[in-house]
């Protein structure tokens, strides 16, 4: 992504990873992507009572070029999906996605032809947040969990090793067709 990716691995890199992670997580700039009722809770989270500014992320950016976190708040209709993908593509790397609420995460109760059954069909999702809609504390909880992930993100050679490891694990995992119940 940047110069930090080019650094050699080892002791130096772990420290760089820590510093970069700390910097990244402390200045997440969310893109506005309020789609339905969840957006009301997302706005509340940004406002004074819950105050996302405490995490350095109070300004929701209307311009994707200046954002690195997309909070998909609400059900994504089939027509909105390409727009959402476009906005995601316009965001610079590194970038993250929180799928806020049941509808964004899985379609929720709108199991029909008009609604995308989970925004992860369109963009990769880092954190899934249940709730209909989730209360602001739940969104904050999701953001803190995302912070935790960002803090521990690997870089460079470490990242490549991690990707290989994840790939191997995914290949060995139970295929969805063999899962039962709701996992199917």
């Amino acid at each position: 992504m940047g110069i930090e990716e080019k650094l050699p691995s080892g002791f130096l890199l772990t420290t760089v990873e820590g510093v970069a992670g700390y910097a990244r997580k402390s200045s997440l700039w969310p893109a506005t992507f309020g789609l339905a009722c969840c957006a009301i809770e997302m706005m509340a989270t940004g406002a004074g009572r819950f105050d996302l500014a405490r995490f350095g992320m109070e300004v929701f950016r209307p311009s994707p070029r200046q954002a690195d976190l997309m909070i998909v708040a609400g059900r994504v209709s089939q027509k909105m999906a390409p727009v959402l993908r476009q906005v995601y593509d316009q965001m610079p790397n590194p970038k993250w996605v929180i799928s806020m609420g049941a509808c964004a995460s899985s379609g929720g109760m709108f199991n029909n032809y008009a609604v995308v059954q989970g925004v992860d069909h369109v963009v990769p999702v880092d954190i899934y947040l249940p709730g209909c809609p989730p209360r602001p504390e739940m969104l904050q909880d999701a953001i803190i969990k995302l912070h935790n992930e960002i803090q521990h993100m690997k870089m460079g050679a470490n990242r490549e090793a991690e990707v290989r490891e994840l790939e191997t694990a995914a290949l060995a995992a139970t295929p969805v067709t063999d899962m039962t119940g709701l996992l199917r």
Partner: protein
Amino acid sequence: MPELPPALSGFWVTFRTQFQKVNTEQYPEQKDKFPPKPRFHGRHQLNRWADGLEKCVGCELCAWACPADAIYVQGADNSEAQRFSPGERYGRVYQINYLRCIFCGLCIEACPTRALTMTHEYELADNGREKVIFEKQDLLAPLREGMVPPPHAMVAGMDSHDYYMGKVTGATEQQREEVQHEEAQREEARRQDQGAAQ
């Protein structure tokens, strides 16, 4: 109060607010200061009878009531050797998909045995779809004082009606012994397996 020029009235609001009590909830740090309201709909819980047997009978009425189709249940037959609930039937598979669940509480209203209730827990976010599907072991209420983990027999001399009438107040000595005996047998089997493996 004298009328301030419009340019200054905005600054006046800001200035005045400095002396008001802060209403920001310091969420992760001071979480307990702002508990949810009593009727808040949080994560579900599968309750137990006083002796530790499960209340769920696997009837799937919660799944039927669910408008989002978030619940999956499979019942099974309680046998004399493996009893999880009083009566004939228990819920062998119980899954709630929190990515579908809209926390409406219709499942709670549908439950004929008060097996399913909702807690105040709300920190459910996770980083994978399958991690937000809660299985039976994630949903079951913790064992309280006087409970022993199923499978075990009903309290001697009682039947499922007595459980519903509230006549069971805790696990009996007999049930404790049964569970301890089973546990010891499992431990023994494990040790033998390990011995065989070595």
